[in-house]
């Protein structure tokens, strides 16, 4: 199989991998918290979950900016061979993911301001309100935040499904590029297996 430790495998840099999986981890928390908290009646738990959700959103936003910066400095490795439609779909999906990972926290921040609740990162750092309290605008931005999140969930589903398909069906190195080289921790061990 070509995907088993192909000699020409070029992985994402460890920095890029860290950024990717940290984003994934944060989203694994932000989505369930977000869906759960909006159903709760006002309580200390609800207030805490809202704060955590917003802090995660701010973190994701900052992290994605750093990842884009890193990507411009350290371009991703070349993609394994695949049909041009697949390459183009992957490219569009990745751009959409980056866009939504910025737009979703932005819409949440603006919604929060419009509803009269400032975002205070980690209960310490107040993030200025770009817009003032405006209930009608708050309701509109709530819809925007909801729709953008549905789009983000859709893009993530496509992203994960494609990665799994590449790994288990096409059996190529697409997913391996985003994983650290655990099996080849020492060159000696790698030679010893052969």
């Amino acid at each position, binding site marked *: 199989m070509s995907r088993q430790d192909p000699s020409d495998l070029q992985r994402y840099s460890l920095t890029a991998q860290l950024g990717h999986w940290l984003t994934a981890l944060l989203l694994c928390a932000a989505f369930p918290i977000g869906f759960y908290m909006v159903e709760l009646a006002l309580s200390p738990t609800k207030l805490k979950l809202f704060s955590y959700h917003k802090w995660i959103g701010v973190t994701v936003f900052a992290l994605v900016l750093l990842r884009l910066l890193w990507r411009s400095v350290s371009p991703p490795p070349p993609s394994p061979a695949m049909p041009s439609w697949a390459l183009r779909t992957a490219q569009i999906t990745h751009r959409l993911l980056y866009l939504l990972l910025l737009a979703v926290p932005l819409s949440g921040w603006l919604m929060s301001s419009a509803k009269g*609740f*400032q975002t205070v990162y980690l209960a*310490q750092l107040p993030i200025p309100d770009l817009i003032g309290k405006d209930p009608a605008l708050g309701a509109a931005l709530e819809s925007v935040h909801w729709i953008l999140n549905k789009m983000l969930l859709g893009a993530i589903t496509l992203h994960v499904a494609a990665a799994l398909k590449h790994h288990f069906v096409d059996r190529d190195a697409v997913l391996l590029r985003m994983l650290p080289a655990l099996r080849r921790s020492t060159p000696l061990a790698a030679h010893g297996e052969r």
Partner: protein
Amino acid sequence: MPPSQAPSLPRSQARLHPGWLRPLMLALPLLVFGHGVEAAPRVVDSGASQISFSVKQMGVAVDGRFTRYSASIDLDTEHPEQSKARIEVDISSLDTGTPEADAIAIDTPWLNANAFPKAVFESTAVRSLGPNRYQAEGQLTIRGSTRAISVPFTTTALPDGRLRAQGEFTLNRTDFGIGGGEWNQGDLVADAVPVRFNLVLSPAPSP
């Protein structure tokens, strides 16, 4: 004024103003400076006034205001120590702009509006801190608890004869037992609650 002329002054006054005029002379300053000396209490213009507060939860300030209150303020700008103020705030008129938060705020663990419908401030002393600057000492009663507080405020005379009194003080909500139980875990909700007021008082009625 040369000392030699001083003794002649009462005599000349007596000559100019016969006895029957004297009460009127004494009343004249009252008519001119009436609202400074012995005015009936001014009433607050609710439409132009605000009483607001800010509660911090996890660093996020949630602002609210009271829309119904009454005030009887006898602010004697000439003799501040003779001033008196009593302000009654209708707790159920609390408005944060978020109905869900309003319901929590007037519920039993917080302000308990059913049992304690009014918050009352009653001044005990007012002293001048400088031009148009005062400090009121008084008793603040919220949720059945009374605490002594100091309230600094400034006044501005408005062109239409009304008087604006504005200031700010900070109360500790736990002093009044506001917000108990699950709401007091950790530092979820800050203890210090800044309260701001901007009261526009009607022109003092003539005595």
